[in-house]
């Protein structure tokens, strides 16, 4: 089995990374980090997942979250979508495989993909509300979040959720606090079948390749790794038995990218907009300098007087 990390220590220990390791910071700039951390990744092997939801529970427990007891709507998803408290969610799809005639129960653990090029961070207007560390973790900084919801629009995977209670954005932190003391995410530790493993991204890719080989040997010719380049690769990756059609896994985007609309909004519009405004002000000044003020002459006043006198009782 993939060698598990040792039990966490209850002794205080120095954080293994922090502010100096930021590579991106929303609506602000960061100095180039002095060092490059080993990129980490969470690998989710959908072919090993039994949909037990241990990851969902472990996530709630570790992050001290409370989700509301819902209702059954005829499906196994509970809660029915990601929420500010549920950073992760098992999504179930009953798929009839046309080629084999077999039913396949595709179960995907949904949650933040920790993109190499995070759309949420790009869209965020609040300095330091979203940060990216050189190990690949994209984290929300609650204190800086203003709850505008731009990250929701920026995210190609529709992950962040805004709390109705404190109006802050929430999503998977990849358990940045656990990673900081050398542990893996709570979900990865809990996963009974090690469908979720965590480690250096390189190792994860190697591990994935071995899994893909095994799947191919079992007749899944299109088994493959999901690490979409459109978002600069992700630090949460999937092993899929049908990597050729990710969309069958509860609409996992085939080639995710930051929406062109968002790119336009956060790109051209931002700069063109300010330029336009500035130039209008400028033109105003110029015109005033050139043609001077438009004043009412004494003549005008006399004309007005004459007009009113010629017409008694007017007005």
């Amino acid at each position, binding site marked *: *089995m993939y060698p598990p990390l040792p039990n966490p220590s209850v002794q205080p220990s120095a954080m293994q990374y922090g502010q100096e390791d930021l590579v991106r910071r929303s609506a602000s700039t960061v100095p180039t980090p002095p060092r490059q951390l080993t990129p980490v990744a969470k690998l989710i092997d959908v072919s090993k997942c*039994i949909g037990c939801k241990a990851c969902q529970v472990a996530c709630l427990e570790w992050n001290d979250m409370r989700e509301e007891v819902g209702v059954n709507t005829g499906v196994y998803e509970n809660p029915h979508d990601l929420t500010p408290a549920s950073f992760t969610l098992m999504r179930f799809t009953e798929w009839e495989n046309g080629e084999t005639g077999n039913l396949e129960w595709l179960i995907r653990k949904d949650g933040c993909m920790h993109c190499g090029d995070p759309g949420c961070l790009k869209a965020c207007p609040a300095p330091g509300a979203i940060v990216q560390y050189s190990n690949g973790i994209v984290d929300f900084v609650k204190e800086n979040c203003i709850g505008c919801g731009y990250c929701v629009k920026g995210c190609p995977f529709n992950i962040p959720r805004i709390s109705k209670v404190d109006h802050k954005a929430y999503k998977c932190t990849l358990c940045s606090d656990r990673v900081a003391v050398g542990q893996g995410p709570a979900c990865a530790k809990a996963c009974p079948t090690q469908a979720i493993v965590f480690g250096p991204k390189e190792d994860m890719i190697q591990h994935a390749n071995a899994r893909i080989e095994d799947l191919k040997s079992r007749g899944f010719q299109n088994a493959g790794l999901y690490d979409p380049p459109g978002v600069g690769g992700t630090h949460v990756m999937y092993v899929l038995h049908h990597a050729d059609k990710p969309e069958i896994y509860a609409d996992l985007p085939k080639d995710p990218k930051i929406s062109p609309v968002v790119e336009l909004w956060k790109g051209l519009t931002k700069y063109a907009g300010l330029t336009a405004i500035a130039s209008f002000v400028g033109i105003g000044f110029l015109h005033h300098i050139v043609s001077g003020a438009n004043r009412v002459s004494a003549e005008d006043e006399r004309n007005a007087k004459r007009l009113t006198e010629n017409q008694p009782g007017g007005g």
Partner: protein
Amino acid sequence: MTNSWTDIKNTDLVIIMGGNAAEAHPCGFKWVTEAKANRGAKLIVVDPRFTRSASVADFYAPIRQGTDIAFILGLINYCIQNDKVHWDYVKAFTNATYLVKDGFSFKDGLFSGYDESKREYDKSSWDYQIGEDGFVMVDDTLSNPRCVWNLLKEHVSVYTPEMVERICGTPKDKYLKVAEMVAETSSPTKTMTSMYALGWTQHSKGSQNIRSMAMLQLILGNIGMRGGGMNALRGHSNIQGLTDIGLMSNLIPGYLTIPTQKEVDFATYMSTRGFKPLRPDQMSYWQNYKKFFVSFQKSMWGDEAQPWNDFAYDWLPKLDVPAYDVLRAFELMHQGKMNGYVCQGFNPLLSFPNRKKCTDALSKLKFLVTMDPLDTETARFWENHGEYNDVDPSQIQTEVIQLPSTCFAEDDGSLVNSGRWLQWHWAGGTPPGEAQRDTWIMAQIWKRLKALYEKEDGPLPDPILKVRWPYADPDDPKADEIAREINGYAIEAVYDPTDPTKVLVEKGKQLASFGQLRDDGTTSCGCWIYTGCFTEDGNNMARRDNSDPDEAGFYSKWAFSWPANRRILYNRASADMNGQPWDPSRKVIAWNGTKWEGYDVPDIAPTAKPDVVGPFIMNPEGTARLFTRTMMKDGPFPAHYEPFESPIANPVAPNVKGNPAARVFEGDMAQFGEAEKFPYAATSYRLTEHFHFWTKHVQPNAVMQPEFFVEISEQLAEEKGIKQGGWVKVMSNRGEVKAKAVVTKRIKPLQCDGKTVHIVGVPLHWGFTGVAKKGLGPNTLTPFVGDANIETPEYKAFLVDIAPLTEPVS
């Protein structure tokens, strides 16, 4: 389990049938995924539903619930027909060659000796032919028509793939694929492990379901092997322990049995427990029965148990019926013949079949005592909860006392996992409020009973007054004190039988193994199979060395495994007649010329010669039984019987309804429903998000699966106009439940005996206490009948009707 959870990683083929390991035992199932990932092992799932286990299986075959015996006997038939038999193993290690009495026969679904009026068999013909030498007659050539092998061959011949398809609804091509994969493991270098649970036990022929697979595993030579075995996935954390310690009406710790009233004295009792070997030179380990029994009596009554009073034999109650199982207990309650009932944990109101009968029964009690960490429905059976518990408290005269007990986090002690590991755990939290440990509660009850019997007199007070109570604080016995008592100690010095001068154990010292037990009253032992768990070396159940030489999967220094820290039962059978492993890459133990050695503690005398002594030392035969003589009430071979409520008549024995030897109480026979009125085959089960009726009290689990639902196929939904997530009503002849509908592709109608059979799945986790939504469960619907041998209720196969509910539901 004959093997351990970690051993599953050593297998080549996993067959999950009669269980759903991925959902009910996810962390144990990990070792299946390991075997797949590292050994290229395959996983077969046979189930009426496409379960979470099926979702990661290499091959899934549907089956109609309650037809497993036909399916497996069909596999045995396939192996015999296609010569997929581990011959050396079968001939040497099973009773295949033994000759059976001429009187034994099987006709029209009935074995010889059936008495319809009693629903019982006269089993005298179900036995071996005994020769002049007093041993069983055998035919090593397997040519004698009366040898077990030929009788078996004949018995299973009816279960052709076509017949299996007719009975089980498993398409022939899928069935043959399974047969092919399974038969592969008849090779000495391939093993299959069987993982099953209540999907096999909760039937009127549950024991025979399991026997069928055990027989198949013997024929394939997979018992005793690494990565093989019969692996019962126990449902609860210490069901294994509570059974080992004999908390059952007919048991004494260590699988000794409570006397019946026919056994008028100790001598008579022992006369049927001699266990004389049936073949030459066999160990027949039960020959030591008296040592285990006497040592137990000593631990029970200490000095009061003496040779002159037959070690207080008379102080044990004598049975007048085979057993007072829970079904009988509730039947007696229902008849008003039971006045008091104590529930130490457990939640019968939701756990026992025919909930209405349970409520009526409890209402007739004078008093009910519950001990539980949680607020159970049983403790509140008298409380009105509208449609979820529609009773009138004023009409219920039962006095109920509810005692708050601690949970796992607040007490020390040992639990026995499915692999027979006794693992110690430590308290880490302060109990809430006034909650108390069960040991304290039991001590307090005993103390008060004792006081009353000292003050007032009453019938036979001595067994109570004189119970051995060797605890530092009699009011609050500590776990380690009791653990030492269970392990046993030397009352007097124990001498080596071969050398009477040699002291094996000094007086007062803890025993090291059950080999040191004596039948003369010089040893005391609470549960002989646990001896070794708490020795002079200390508490072996608390051992935490997780080393695993050669990654063989034994972990022999972790905790303690009964018996004798053995990790794989019958491990002698992993080696051939010369004592060499059938599969060198999967060695467990091997004969080095003078003794057995290897990764595991040999399941045989260390010096027992491989070509002489058989591996199944608990049997007088020394071999495993394909033909079980008179051990089972419903036949020495398994045979297919329909569930008592079945959508079709038994295709192989149309006139036999249900299991002919299963006990059915009068009133209950009338309560069975017929397929005309209740056309759909229902089954009950657990979901992975919940544990029984506990986790509806646990907020995150209530979130994961908040509300009671039933699962049906898209076809049935279409037929009935039932919508995804809509409300439905499910009715049986005993009651009805209201639930949400989960319409799924994972359940498909089956074709059985020319009839379309729709399946309705009814999960069991909801009630009226806790934080999850209130709901009813399967026991409102299920019939009050149990397995012929051990009375496990038939929860897995019953008949219902279903209809959409349109009226608004609160």
